[in-house]
């Protein structure tokens, strides 16, 4: 029941906002819905983890196990933060004359949340596919919210590439379904049943299927070389949406990938998927590092950094073993927290400087100390420095890597140094120096930034300690994946 509620809230909110005329009312509904979703999501997740159980609803259409609970937590938490930040941001971006855009933003945001929640709580792989495809459809207008040439271009590319990519994932789904039904007669296209039948699947078919899944959902997860839409879309979308897309949506893509990986590993052993994941992870890392080294646009920088981190997570998954997966999941959380923080801050910077060119953003620390400081902290976290969470998760991932595939890990670490060099140069350029003369001093959207404190606190907390509750939750999630 709780899962249905969880899905219902954003759906209803989306519908009602679409009908509303009053701006203030829209904002209220939006914020309240986000908070309600957060509450429900957390309750559901805690129930799953506490009871070491899963929640099943609507005749097995919806099912939440520990892994889903993790994703639900992330989606609802970051959704709520982005929603609250978004109130201020949208108010600053769209004045009273642009209520239409505001309405579209609020409404589609809710749809976006809904589709993501659906994707991670359904047991039906087909429905999951539909939901993930729907995330694209929900966000494509959000990317194009400003309706500029650039955003249009980004949105179109996003639409076409994601659609083509995700279509391939459907082939994978069909093939898995086929492998399941061919092996054991009639089965549902449910993950649970597929998982149960995994050992009897036709390995040849599963091999092919996983390639489709990898390319398909990999497109959604922003893995190279299917990542090309990502820097465009993430950099053109409004900040709160960028935050959600980079912070959560990519993870939803990965989530789908991981679900299939769990099945594939049972059929083929973990070597096959590991090799593919490590390869594609390294490629993502390499491509991202090249782009980060010479990046001139800070939103694109953040976007490429997402590619990089997705690569790291893939490496973690590829390294496998308890710790590899543990590190990967932990890194999912850390990356989501830090990237969403940074994308929202990039909104602040954009509002302040009215440019996304790194070279024209100078003296951020002096111009807006709060934004600058938080941006610095976020970047440091992203670059894997203590005392922030990613330091720990990367350490865990690479420890697992040295123990299983030392060379891959070493190359990965070397590429991270290149990434570090590139990002640090960009950040240095932005934070320090003398701000432009005509720029007013002071932070914009000071109060909207309050929810970002949650990100910050969580990042630091995860950098210093791992609460046993979290460890348990991750342990259960890993168990779901068969680790």
């Amino acid at each position, binding site marked *: 029941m709780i899962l249905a509620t969880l899905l219902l809230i954003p759906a209803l909110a989306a519908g009602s906002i679409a009908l509303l005329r009053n701006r203030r009312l829209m904002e209220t509904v939006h914020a309240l819905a986000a908070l309600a979703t957060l509450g429900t999501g957390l309750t559901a997740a805690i129930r799953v983890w506490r009871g070491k159980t899963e929640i099943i609803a609507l005749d097995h259409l919806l099912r939440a196990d520990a892994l889903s609970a993790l994703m639900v937590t992330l989606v609802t938490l970051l959704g709520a933060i982005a929603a609250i930040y978004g109130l201020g941001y949208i108010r600053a971006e769209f004045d009273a004359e642009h209520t239409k855009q505001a309405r579209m933003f609020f409404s589609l945001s809710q749809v976006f949340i809904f589709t993501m929640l659906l994707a991670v709580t359904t047991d039906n792989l*087909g*429905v999951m596919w*539909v939901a993930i495809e729907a995330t694209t*459809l929900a966000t494509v207008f959000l990317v194009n919210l400003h309706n500029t040439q*650039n955003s*249009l271009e980004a949105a179109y590319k996003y639409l076409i590439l994601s659609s083509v990519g995700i279509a391939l994932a459907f082939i994978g789904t069909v093939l898995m379904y086929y492998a399941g039904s061919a092996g054991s007669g009639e089965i549902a296209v449910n993950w649970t049943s597929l998982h149960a039948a995994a050992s009897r699947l036709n390995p040849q078919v599963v091999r092919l299927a996983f390639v489709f899944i990898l390319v398909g959902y990999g497109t959604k997860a922003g893995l190279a070389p299917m990542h090309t839409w990502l*820097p465009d879309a993430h950099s053109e979308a409004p900040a709160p949406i960028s935050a959600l897309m980079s912070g959560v949506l990519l993870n939803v893509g990965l989530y789908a990938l991981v679900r299939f990986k769990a099945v594939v590993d049972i059929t083929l052993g973990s070597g096959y998927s590991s090799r593919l994941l490590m390869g594609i992870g390294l490629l993502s890392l390499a491509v991202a590092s090249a782009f980060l080294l010479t990046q001139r646009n800070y939103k694109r920088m953040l976007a490429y950094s997402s590619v990089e981190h997705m690569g790291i997570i893939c490496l973690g998954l590829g390294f496998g073993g308890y710790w590899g997966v543990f590190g990967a999941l932990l890194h999912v959380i850390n990356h989501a927290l830090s990237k969403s923080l940074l994308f929202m801050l990039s909104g602040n910077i954009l509002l302040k400087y009215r440019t996304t060119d790194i070279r024209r953003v100078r003296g951020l620390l002096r111009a807006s100390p709060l934004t600058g400081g938080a941006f610095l902290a976020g970047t440091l976290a992203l670059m894997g420095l203590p005392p922030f969470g990613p330091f720990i998760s990367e350490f865990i991932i690479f420890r697992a890597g040295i123990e299983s595939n030392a060379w891959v890990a070493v190359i990965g670490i070397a590429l991270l140094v290149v990434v570090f060099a590139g990002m640090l140069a960009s950040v240095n350029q932005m934070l320090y120096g003398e701000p432009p003369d005509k720029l007013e001093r002071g932070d914009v959207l000071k109060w909207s930034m309050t929810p970002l404190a949650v990100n910050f606190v969580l990042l630091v907390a995860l950098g210093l300690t791992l609460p046993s509750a979290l460890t348990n939750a991750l342990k259960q999630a890993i168990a779901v994946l068969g680790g």
Partner: protein
Amino acid sequence: MFVEIFPKLVNLLASLAVGTAFLLIARRDLRGQVRLFAAQSFFVSILAGVIAVFARSAELFAVALGLALLKVFIIPAILNRAVSRIGLQRAVAPYLGAPAALFVSGVLVALAFYVMAPITASNPLPTADAVPVAFAGVLIGAFITVIRRRALTQILGFLMLENGIFLLALLATYGVPFIVEIGVFLDVLVAVLIMEVFIYRIKENFDSIEVGEMGRLKG
């Protein structure tokens, strides 16, 4: 008798469907392209109907009808509306000329047979022989999106790819569960509607629907 004819019929219809995709590669005018897509959808829905009869599946028959409705009528109608609204388009050569593109498509078909061989081999269904053909349709659809410069043609390529996938699912497993199919239809419909909007916006912003114009976001 129907049992004997059935695989051949399936093969024929699948080949026809993929054949229309080949034609699309050669075709330049937008209306003709839309018509080709409608034709392909038509073959696919006929095939779905045939399989539904063969498998005695009411659900599948409903899907076939739905498909026919959606892809033979609604979507072509939408696309035709778009074609009329954007007006006449200057003909632009695709990235690859028709002969070369046809050659590559041939290679893709061979590849499809190569890749899908294990599935054909392991599949007990009578429709299995046509699975590679369906996959060839997928690849050609994707290939069309790669070589064509106009947004509308790219969308058609995507839709053909979608058809290929449907065909693949149909041939390999007699279709996926109903709810998924409905969801997919819904997605495709929404996607096409969104794409239509985008085509207008692109036309408005760039004064043509050539995707090559959109090359400002680099690096």
